[in-house]
């Protein structure tokens, strides 16, 4: 039997962690773009657009991410597309992130005082101008901490893509475990690597939140 050193294990995990990072970035950025679209539908005064967005959010927040991955993986195949795992993983994670980000941002937009809408309306601004110049600049500020916080959920969410066969950190963990028979060490290291990716983001989200609260109290 081949002996594996701790470095052998760690090196393999680190190489795979690159894909966790890439997938997280793609999902977060893509999810942000789609999420912005859903946000605009969600706060639209048109009732049917509003319900469309609500339905979307309910569907993606009310079902397991794992199921969404399975459906993307097997479902897209029905349309005659040969779906590689990375594509299914990307699509599912983008749509899933979009639902959560849209809902987070809606909370931020609604936290802006009604008087801001009224004042800008009374100055003759249209809806898009109100959003662009008055509401979003204020909402962005309070949206930053929870948005950074959500990026941690995205990174953790990518671990599920190992189940449909995308080779990232978790999948590498299973592969290396099967080769070394050292589950305690390997999964321990995998957990620590995830922690190293997530904890700085969690911490910065907390710090941003605290700064924001202090700024608000001084008003």
């Amino acid at each position, binding site marked *: 039997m081949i002996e594996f050193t701790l470095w052998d294990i760690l090196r393999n995990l680190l190489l795979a962690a690159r894909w966790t990072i890439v997938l997280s970035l793609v999902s977060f950025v893509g999810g942000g773009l789609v999420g912005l679209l859903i946000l605009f539908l969600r706060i639209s005064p048109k009732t049917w657009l509003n319900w469309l967005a609500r339905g979307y959010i309910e569907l993606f927040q009310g079902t397991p991410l*794992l199921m969404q991955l399975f459906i993307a993986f097997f479902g897209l195949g029905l349309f005659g597309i040969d779906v590689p795992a990375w594509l299914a993983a990307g699509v599912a994670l983008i749509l899933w992130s979009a639902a959560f980000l849209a809902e987070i941002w809606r909370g931020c937009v609604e936290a802006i005082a009604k008087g801001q809408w009224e004042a800008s309306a009374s100055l003759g601004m249209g809806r898009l101008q109100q959003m662009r110049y008055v509401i979003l600049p204020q909402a962005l500020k309070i949206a930053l901490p929870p948005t950074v916080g959500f990026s941690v959920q995205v990174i953790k969410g990518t671990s599920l893509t190992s189940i449909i066969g995308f080779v990232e950190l978790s999948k590498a963990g299973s592969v290396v475990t099967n080769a070394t028979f050292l589950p305690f060490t390997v*999964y*321990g290291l995998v957990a620590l690597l995830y922690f190293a990716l997530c904890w700085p983001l969690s911490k910065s989200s907390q710090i941003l939140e605290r700064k924001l609260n202090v700024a608000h109290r001084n008003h």
Partner: protein
Amino acid sequence: MSYQFDFAWASQYAPQIAKGIMITVELTVVGGLLGVALGTACAWSRALGPSWLKPVVATYVELIRNTPFLIQLFFIFFGLPSLGVQMNELTAANIAMVINLGAYSCEIIRAGIQATPKGQFEAGASLAMTPFETFRHVVLVPSLQRIWPALSSQVVIVMLGSAVVSQIAVEDLTFAANFIQSRTFRAFEAYIVSTLIYLALAILLRQAMRGIGTILFPKRAAR
């Protein structure tokens, strides 16, 4: 597109699905009750507990919140036996869910405790209650009431997250879906059906949490 949907398998595999739902519900109920209990204890120790305990609990909370549930599950089920801790799949899944929800609910409940006006603690103290008595009788219920919506969402998130326990062969709803698709090759239909069941479970669970809330905090219902 010429794909023909086929749900003919549904009646044949209904027992598997029913069993899967039972297990998912069982995991959620056990995880929910024990997880929130653990979270409350941890929230108390982080907010008001002895100083030696605070960093221990903080480390636990940060470790859990910053690692995927899947890895926590694998560590418990595959990793711990090598230290001589043996357990079956269902026990491992239950433990993983309790530990996971415990960490998240700790932070949520702690926020509720910290939002308590200082006067409440002072009033308790002035009535000769110990800090723990003040926490137990004065602070806890209003704190839980304050954060009940956030806690409810977290319980739903944990329920949906339980789908991955199928990966250690716990026979939950996702396991049933995988089983059916492997026998019938009707992957899409099997996953659509189980996804819709999860959606129904999530909506029911949210209603249930709201119901529990009105029972625990009757004042809110009156308002």
